[in-house]
């Protein structure tokens, strides 16, 4: 057979990238100064998971405070800082970089048959920019003035009036934005310039497509938030009236600029996750993806329409009725490509040969949770219902279903899918099966009651609440214990597998995209000889050939 996969047989015979350094250093220097996309991906992983754990613990503390009305655990000021930090950490430090920076870095070059990204040094730089931004954000907590209390949306005028360290935290977000832009530029260039021989655009795995669409949003939308942030800092520091009406500015202008970035950012968060789903379902169904082109184009459609719906965050702001109508209509349209994806994913299971291993189970729970998130988005896209539900727990529930139930769940699914490839070890499958069930229960207990509370009229960002919400708040808090407990359990079995786990074969799931053709963990520069791609990305007839390689 042709050596189309360019690769080595199953058992590891070559030194993995862990054992070879790209520079003259060994030990920590080999990591901190590495240009290898896989090492950089792992450095992102350790940083991002650490911040995720911090964010989750803050969320747990908030839920603990809300266990009963009256507020005993923290002061109101502390609570207000906690929800702000929870939002800032989860959004800017976890969910925006999450999947692209870790799995995109690690697998995008491999999946298109490249030895690395187009700009390896820039890639390393973007990690340092990310860490710098994170350190600035953490510094803002401990400087005099105290942790910010504005909510992650930084609405003006409150964010100009607040005495807390708003400027520094904003500057941190500004810096983090640059990391995002640099990664985006790197991925776009890599996809355009470094695809392997025979790897046409329509032979690319859908994870590459999704990451590619995301990269464009990162490049185009992020500068808007960067400029907006600078304007707020200038306003705070020099009293220039841009947004603050007391100085002749317009606070609604801030909301527009903020959401022009932050709504597309929602798609930065979800698209890569959708890409991972399109990898996992074919692998465990052992058949080609249903509607490859529709899924690929729907990513682009989401990326494009996603720019035009920001005004749906402002239906109650007093913007014109005409704007409200147009933004509502466009919001309904952006739901369609997501629907197309879900239908195609489910259709991919049809007449497959389904092996519900843990990554697949995580994807199944994703489809339910994300569908709930998406469908409740319709409630919020509709004008009359949004006026009632905006800024209530309903919105909180909706975006946690989309962001955590969607992207968060798939982040965990991706860990389960690619862990054996990244570390060459296998985790305990039984533990993983238990975890997915506990996660699903905990998640719904935590967030579903918030839909009900929201419809009853419970506003978000409340330190205290009326007694009528107590039973729902209770269930929600109990759910948070299960959910966070499960997350620690998952981290636990991964760490155990890392040290004590059984050796993984190079292709434990029977995948056919290029990463499954190479050894686990991969060698430095991924391929012995660069592969020539002749097959469609999800052509499982390759499996027979692969076994003989």
């Amino acid at each position, binding site marked *: 057979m042709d050596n189309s996969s360019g690769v080595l047989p199953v058992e590891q015979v070559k030194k993995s990238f862990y054992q070879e350094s790209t520079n003259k250093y060994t030990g920590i220097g080999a990591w901190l100064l590495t240009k290898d996309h896989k090492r950089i991906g792992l450095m992102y992983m350790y940083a991002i998971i650490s911040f995720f754990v911090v964010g989750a613990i803050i969320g747990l503390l908030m839920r603990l405070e809300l266990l009963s009305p009256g507020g005993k655990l923290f002061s109101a000021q502390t609570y207000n800082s906690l929800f702000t930090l929870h939002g800032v950490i989860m959004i800017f430090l976890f969910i925006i970089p999450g999947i692209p920076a870790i799995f995109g870095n690690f697998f995008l070059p491999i999946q298109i048959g490249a030895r690395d990204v187009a700009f390896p040094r820039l890639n390393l730089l973007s990690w340092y920019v990310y860490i710098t931004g994170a350190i600035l954000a953490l510094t803002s907590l401990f400087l005099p003035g105290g942790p910010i209390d504005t909510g992650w949306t930084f*609405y003006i005028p*409150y964010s100009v009036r607040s005495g807390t360290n708003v400027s520094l935290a904003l500057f941190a977000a500004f810096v983090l934005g640059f990391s995002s832009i640099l990664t985006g530029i790197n991925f776009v260039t890599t996809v355009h310039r470094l695809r392997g021989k025979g790897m046409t655009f329509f032979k690319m795995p859908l994870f590459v497509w999704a990451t590619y669409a995301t990269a464009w949003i990162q490049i185009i939308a992020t500068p808007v938030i960067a400029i907006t942030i600078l304007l707020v800092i200038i306003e705070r520091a020099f009293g220039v009236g841009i947004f603050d009406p007391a100085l002749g500015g317009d606070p609604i202008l801030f909301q527009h600029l903020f959401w022009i970035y932050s709504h597309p950012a929602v798609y930065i968060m979800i698209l890569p996750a959708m890409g991972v789903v399109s990898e996992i379902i074919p692998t465990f169904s052992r058949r080609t993806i249903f509607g490859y082109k529709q899924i690929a184009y729907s990513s682009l459609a989401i990326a494009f329409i996603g720019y035009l719906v920001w005004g749906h965050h402002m239906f109650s702001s007093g913007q014109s009725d005409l704007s409200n109508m147009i933004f509502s209509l466009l919001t309904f349209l952006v739901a369609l490509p997501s629907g*197309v994806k879900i239908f195609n994913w*489910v*259709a991919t299971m049809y007449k497959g040969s*389904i092996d519900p291993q843990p990554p697949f189970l995580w994807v199944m729970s994703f*489809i339910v949770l994300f569908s709930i998130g998406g469908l409740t988005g319709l409630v919020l*896209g509709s004008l009359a219902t949004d006026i*009632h539900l905006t800024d209530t727990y309903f919105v909180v529930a909706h975006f946690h279903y989309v962001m955590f139930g969607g992207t968060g769940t798939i982040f965990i699914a991706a860990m389960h899918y690619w862990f054996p490839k990244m570390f060459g070890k296998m985790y305990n499958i039984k533990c993983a099966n238990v975890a997915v069930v506990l996660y699903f229960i905990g998640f719904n207990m935590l967030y579903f009651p918030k839909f009900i509370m929201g419809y009853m009229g419970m506003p978000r960002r409340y330190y205290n609440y009326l007694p009528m919400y107590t039973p729902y708040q209770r269930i929600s808090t109990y759910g948070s214990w299960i959910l966070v407990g499960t997350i620690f359990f998952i981290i636990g079995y991964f760490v155990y597998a890392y040290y004590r786990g059984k050796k993984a074969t190079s292709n434990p799931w029977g995948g056919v995209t290029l990463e499954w053709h190479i050894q686990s963990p991969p060698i430095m520069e991924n391929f012995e000889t660069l592969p020539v791609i002749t097959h469609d990305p999800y052509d499982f007839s390759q499996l027979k050939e692969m076994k003989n390689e």
Partner: protein
Amino acid sequence: MGPAPTVHAESVDFVMLYIVAISVVLLIGITVTMIYFVFKYNRKKGHEPVDIHGNVLLEVVWIVIPTLLVLSMFYFGYTSFRELRDKPDNPFIVKVTARMWQFTFEYANGKKTDTLYVPLNAPVDLEMKSVDVNHCLYIPAFRIKEDIIYGQTNHLYFNAKQTGDYDIACAEYCGLNHSAMYTKVKVLLDNDFTKWYGGNWQPVKNGSASN
């Protein structure tokens, strides 16, 4: 929650029910199909997988039907929203001032209160201003809210058809005591309201009654 206190609340509940009903059907459909496939096409059963690359008819179906569904949701949401703009020419106007962390209501006769008093079955227009940061006046029972933005006047319109006390909450984060920024709207019978108001308050129910 009892009968809805405004006509608009009823129509919002209808839109909600409409969207949720369709959503539940879709959600159950997706979930059941998926679980069915996992059992039916389980690898243990030893089927040979069949590569199906797509189906144009299906793709058209699941673009067109959802498009029609979401357009109908948009339509109901929009028409219900329009009710909030169907203000008669001379509503009962109350000026609202929001500050950290309190609402103040000022009536045409100069009366000022912390609690909003309104007459039953009368169109009420709140003229809302803020003196510091953004707030939002939210009456969950009426299913309405509107932001109160510093530097601009926003309006909120309603017409209560049921007497009683209903919560008013601030729904736009405004700092330390945001969660304590609660008050009530008290909907009173005509007579009670006139007594409380201390005189004629220009009833507008039957057009030119104020003359």
